[in-house]
């Protein structure tokens, strides 16, 4: 009996955590892609907003009827913003921290402005959940992990596998890592550091934009101001927690997602504790995702310092350092 309740609670937690942090997963993969080639884009929060608002505009104002096309439009918008960022920091070598924060601020402001007249309008063009059919229905353990949108599978399985394979099993990926770790060496063997950095940070921005598009095309599904609500920053934290390894990002994103769904579940069911009423508990739980994310960042670094054997979790050596041949 007790076991069944715990199992039930756990499954419903995971079941709602998976879609809740698909955004974080997409943004974390996008951020990791850029960071692997040495470009730190702190503008994830803004990119999510831009991706989301342009998907909303595509659906509500341009009459786009396919969620995939709407998502593509959101991704292109985010990629354009990412290109401006990349040109500033890679080609002009401006400070990645400053321009990244500028992108976060500007992206939030721009997307909120563009979304002003569309607040709360429900989006009808939605992703449909994948239904693997008959026999698997009506079982909690199955439905927690299945019956999600295709985007969820892409975010949690497709992208990490592809990124892992490319990074660690191909020559191209080795060159990518070289650009992030030792750009001078990559340059010496004929890899265009500038070109690769711009290309992959733009691709990463597009992925983050896809995260924003997913929010409005499936998760919320409507536009509201400040749509990212910190998920962009959490995604950057997840990259650190994951030690720049694609697979571990899944664990980080799910950790954050389960804290989010713990909060929403507690609110919906009016949970309380003996020493804390339901409303106080929900305030407390709404701080938890960020606290847990913060602690999660400290884990890899702490493990290294406290002498545990962990595989390399250090940031790419040239992260956030502009490369210039003249300055070697």
């Amino acid at each position, binding site marked *: 009996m007790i076991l069944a309740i715990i199992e039930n609670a756990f499954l419903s937690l995971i079941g709602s955590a998976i879609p809740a942090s698909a955004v974080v997963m997409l943004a974390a993969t996008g951020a990791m892609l850029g960071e692997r080639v040495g470009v730190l884009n*702190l503008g994830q929060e*803004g990119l999510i907003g831009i991706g989301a608002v342009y998907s909303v505009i595509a659906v509500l104002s341009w009459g786009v009827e396919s969620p995939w096309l709407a998502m593509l439009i959101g991704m292109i918008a985010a990629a354009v913003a990412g290109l401006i960022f990349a*040109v*500033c920091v*890679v*080609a*002009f*070598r*401006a*400070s990645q*921290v*400053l*321009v990244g*924060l*500028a*992108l*976060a*601020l*500007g*992206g*939030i*402001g*721009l997307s*909120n*402005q563009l979304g*002003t007249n569309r607040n709360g309008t429900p989006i009808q063009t939605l992703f449909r959940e994948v239904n693997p059919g008959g026999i698997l229905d009506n079982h909690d353990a199955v439905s927690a992990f299945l019956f999600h949108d295709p985007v969820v599978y892409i975010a949690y399985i497709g992208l990490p596998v592809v990124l892992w394979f490319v990074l660690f099993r191909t020559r191209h990926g080795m060159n990518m890592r070289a650009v992030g770790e030792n750009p001078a060496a990559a340059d010496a063997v004929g890899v265009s550091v*500038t*070109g690769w950095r711009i290309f992959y940070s733009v691709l990463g921005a597009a992925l983050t934009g896809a995260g924003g598009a997913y929010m409005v095309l499936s998760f919320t599904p409507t536009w509201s*101001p400040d749509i990212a609500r*910190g998920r962009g*920053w*959490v995604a*950057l*934290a997840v990259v*650190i927690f994951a030690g720049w390894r694609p697979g571990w990002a899944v664990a980080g994103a799910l950790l954050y997602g389960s804290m989010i769904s713990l909060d929403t579940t507690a609110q919906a069911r009016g949970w309380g504790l003996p020493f804390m009423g339901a*409303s*106080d508990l929900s*305030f*407390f739980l*709404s*701080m938890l995702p*960020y*606290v847990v*994310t*913060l602690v999660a*960042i*400290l884990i890899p*670094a*702490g493990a*290294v*310092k406290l002498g545990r054997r962990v595989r390399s979790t250090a*940031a790419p050596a040239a992260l956030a350092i502009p490369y210039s*041949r*003249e*300055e*070697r």
Partner: protein
Amino acid sequence: MTPLGSIASAVLRATPWRLERRLEVEARRAALSRIGGAVGAMVLVGILLLLTGRNAFWIFWQALDAIFGRQRGIEGAALRAIPILMTALGVALSLRMKVWNIGSDGQFLMGALAAVGVGIHMDGPGWLVLILMAVAATLAGAVWILVPALARAYWDVNEIITTLLLNFVALQLVTWSALGFWRDKEAAVIQSTREVSHTLPGLPGANSVTIALLVPLVIAAALWWVFRSTTIGYEIDTIGGNPRAAGFAGIAVRRRILVVMLFTGAIAGLGGMLQLSAPGAQAMNAGFSAQFGLSGFIVAALAGASFWGVIGGGLFIASMFYAGIVLQTKGLSVYIIFAIYGVILTGIALGEIAARYRVVRRDADEAASHPGAAVGTEASREAGP
């Protein structure tokens, strides 16, 4: 040479000028270049506004009139300048050692929250309550950055994300206090905490600005003095220049980083108390900080960690901020202000880079006729420490 660089040099080749890297960038030139970047960004914004059918000149005129046309405008800008200056001073201090404290908004909120806690629970003479509020706020700001500071100093964990995540926690905590544990049950419209009954004395001749405005000036002067005349200031600048070299020179780098970060949090926290002790702002609600930390960050980026620069830049950004509030009633939204902030910050970052180059006439350096030697000196300089 980057593709854009080659395009730029191809364009320049058609002219009698060319780009040259400066061997040394003076602080004043860099500051002017950053300001130039910010002004250029604002001109760009003005052009964009014109293109979207808004009269940028009219908006600019309205903004100037809103601020300097009446005493209320000047005081409104000065009131916003207090929190912006305090958070900016904190960020500028951390920038002296190349540490980015992006969490000053959270430290500011926690300072204000601690001040409210003391203010609504303590009876006593007003001056004593206010002093204890200031002490509590300073401590709360420092405590709020303690974990990121320890992690940065001893575990080398990047402080950007950790400080920022705590902003969200602080905001939730403030919301909780306003709607939950310190809620004012009599207040009808806006849900907020109970009100502190003491305020700081006003400045002579002012209606709403208190002596709180003097605090950032005093702190800026103190920091300026510390960095000009003391060993500690020199050590911090050394760490900012090259932490490894600072370590070899026998400076306790990690402890310095910890202490400086705690100070930056403390300054922002005190800013929260100053904001709270102004007449009419004695209670907290979820909108207590209108992203003052972000404005402060932009000020510090503009000033490039010069404390007097922070004062100048802070007054400028605060005026803009207040103009933004006034213009909201005239068809510009607060969101546009954020978008403009983003463009300005990009302009500052590009200005910082532009200061490293200069345009020289081609025939002038043909006369110099030793391009190889110039490259050689630069290369040897770059190879140095």
